[in-house]
């Protein structure tokens, strides 16, 4: 067995992957079901090995603003929380998007609204892909459905964040955060030196040198004409991301007569639903969006011409289903099935819903 195959929780995988990726700083505040991220980082003490800063802030608001500051210096910085804590961070996230800074945010979702429960949920889909904070901005949103992807998406999230100078978010849930699976750890990267950061991020506030103008990090622009220009630039960037960065996985879609659309832990449960349905002779497939924004609308539109119906399966009251409906534009019947507030559906419940809502209707 190779040395780097480990058995661990999704939350632990994020912490280990962050150290290995060469992250410069983590700023967080504990909340179930993601506290193992901060706990694992504290136990690993990376400040003694890679020099990575790990800090428990006084609040979620402080943590996201530490990320804002760190990101302004060109450092690879991240934060994590669960739903109520992510709500607290929204102002800072909007500022970071407005200042066009790269960073990584992790949300291990739990049942809401309000303080809600500590059990798994996917009810922060709207918050993540439709705004959350104020203003016309987008978050590059990655939805892991395994512990392996929890580890892999740390590096991918930072790569995309730096490629587009935009915050990226890993949108996971209590199942993926708490479950243990095999994971192959990504290779070690050295943290960048100050010289490398200055060369890579000429916009970073790293101390003004004589031969250039001051770098200013701000989301404020009081001249509306200039602010519109900024917004037009953001939108051009978002369009590029939509063209280049859509990711999804297909599971038994080729000959499918019916299609499930599900992300994260729901997609894992739906794999079992597909296995069980096929055993009964129902030609069922699963399309799993990996990026929730940019949303894989084109491929879903393609399948609208092939299948008789689609069921969007989510641990919420019907959020992603709106994007599925926009993608198919009325071409095929689209319904939603979900459980709420921290209750997780079983594969049987999903298959029954498919039969009642789509196949027999």
């Amino acid at each position, binding site marked *: 067995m190779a040395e780097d195959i480990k058995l661990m929780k999704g939350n632990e995988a994020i912490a280990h992957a962050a150290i290995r990726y060469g992250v410069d700083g983590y700023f967080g505040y504990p909340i179930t079901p993601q506290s193992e991220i901060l706990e694992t980082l504290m136990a690993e003490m990376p400040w003694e090995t890679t020099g990575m800063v790990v800090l428990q802030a006084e609040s979620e608001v402080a943590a996201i603003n530490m990320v804002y500051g760190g990101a302004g210096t060109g450092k690879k910085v991240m934060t994590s929380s669960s739903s109520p804590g992510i709500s607290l961070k929204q102002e800072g996230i909007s500022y970071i998007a407005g200042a066009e800074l790269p960073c990584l945010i992790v949300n291990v979702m739990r049942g809401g609204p309000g303080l809600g429960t*500590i059990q798994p949920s996917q009810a922060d889909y709207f918050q993540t892909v439709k705004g959350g904070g104020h203003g016309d901005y987008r978050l590059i949103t990655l939805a892991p459905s395994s512990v392996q992807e929890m580890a892999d998406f740390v590096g991918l999230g930072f790569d995309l964040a730096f490629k587009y100078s935009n915050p990226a978010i890993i949108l996971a849930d209590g199942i993926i955060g708490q479950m243990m699976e095999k994971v192959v750890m990504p290779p070690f990267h050295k943290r960048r030196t100050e010289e490398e950061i200055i060369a890579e991020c000429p916009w970073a506030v790293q101390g003004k040198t004589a031969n250039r103008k001051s770098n200013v990090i701000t989301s404020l622009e009081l001249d509306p004409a200039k602010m519109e220009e900024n917004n037009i630039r953001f939108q051009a960037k978002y369009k590029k991301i939509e063209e280049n960065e859509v990711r999804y996985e297909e599971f038994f879609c080729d000959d499918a007569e019916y299609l499930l659309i599900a992300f994260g832990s729901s997609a894992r449960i739906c794999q079992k639903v597909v296995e069980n349905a096929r055993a009964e002779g129902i030609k069922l497939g699963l399309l799993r969006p990996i990026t929730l924004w940019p949303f894989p609308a084109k491929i879903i539109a393609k399948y609208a011409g092939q299948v008789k119906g689609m069921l969007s399966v989510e641990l919420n009251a019907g959020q992603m289903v709106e994007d599925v409906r926009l993608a198919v534009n009325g071409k095929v019947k689209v319904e939603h099935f979900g459980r709420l507030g921290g209750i997780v559906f079983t594969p049987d419940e999903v298959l029954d819903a498919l039969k009642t809502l789509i196949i027999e209707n």
Partner: protein
Amino acid sequence: MKQEIIIAGFGGQGVLSMGKILAYSGLMEGKEVSWMPSYGPEQRGGTANVTVILSDDRISSPVLNEYDIAIILNQPSMDKFESKVKPGGILIYDGYGIHTSVKRTDISVYRVDAMDVATEMKNEKAFNMLILGGLLKIVPMVKLENVLLGLKKSLPERHHKLIPMNETAIKKGMEIIKKI
């Protein structure tokens, strides 16, 4: 081959750690494994359960409708999970604190009086390893040597001196399990 297992009992009985050791043992055998806890606010005395899957192939859902094997360690778990054992499956329970008899006739039922034996051994912490021993006697899904390797991996180094005690408890569990 695939084993879908639920272990359910009180918090503090070592339910989650027994599942962890089983998962690590599977890892040592090169199997695909998943370990999915119910992570409610369960302290000692609350209910706790964990789903463990060991498989030769990729594991789809960590959340299941029904189980090949249910390991039941208290009455609330018996009430909840007896009906969730697959036809032809296995139910193993500890007699202590269980006051209803198993009604299912389409499954194999085993009893392992681990709580009594752990009390006799004056070692309550051996409880979950006695249960694990019983399970491995009925379904030898992982080799004992790999369980010991799994113990080594899942226990912090300062507790490695406890491994021989755990091995004794596993072997004792293999002796005391009986078919109902």
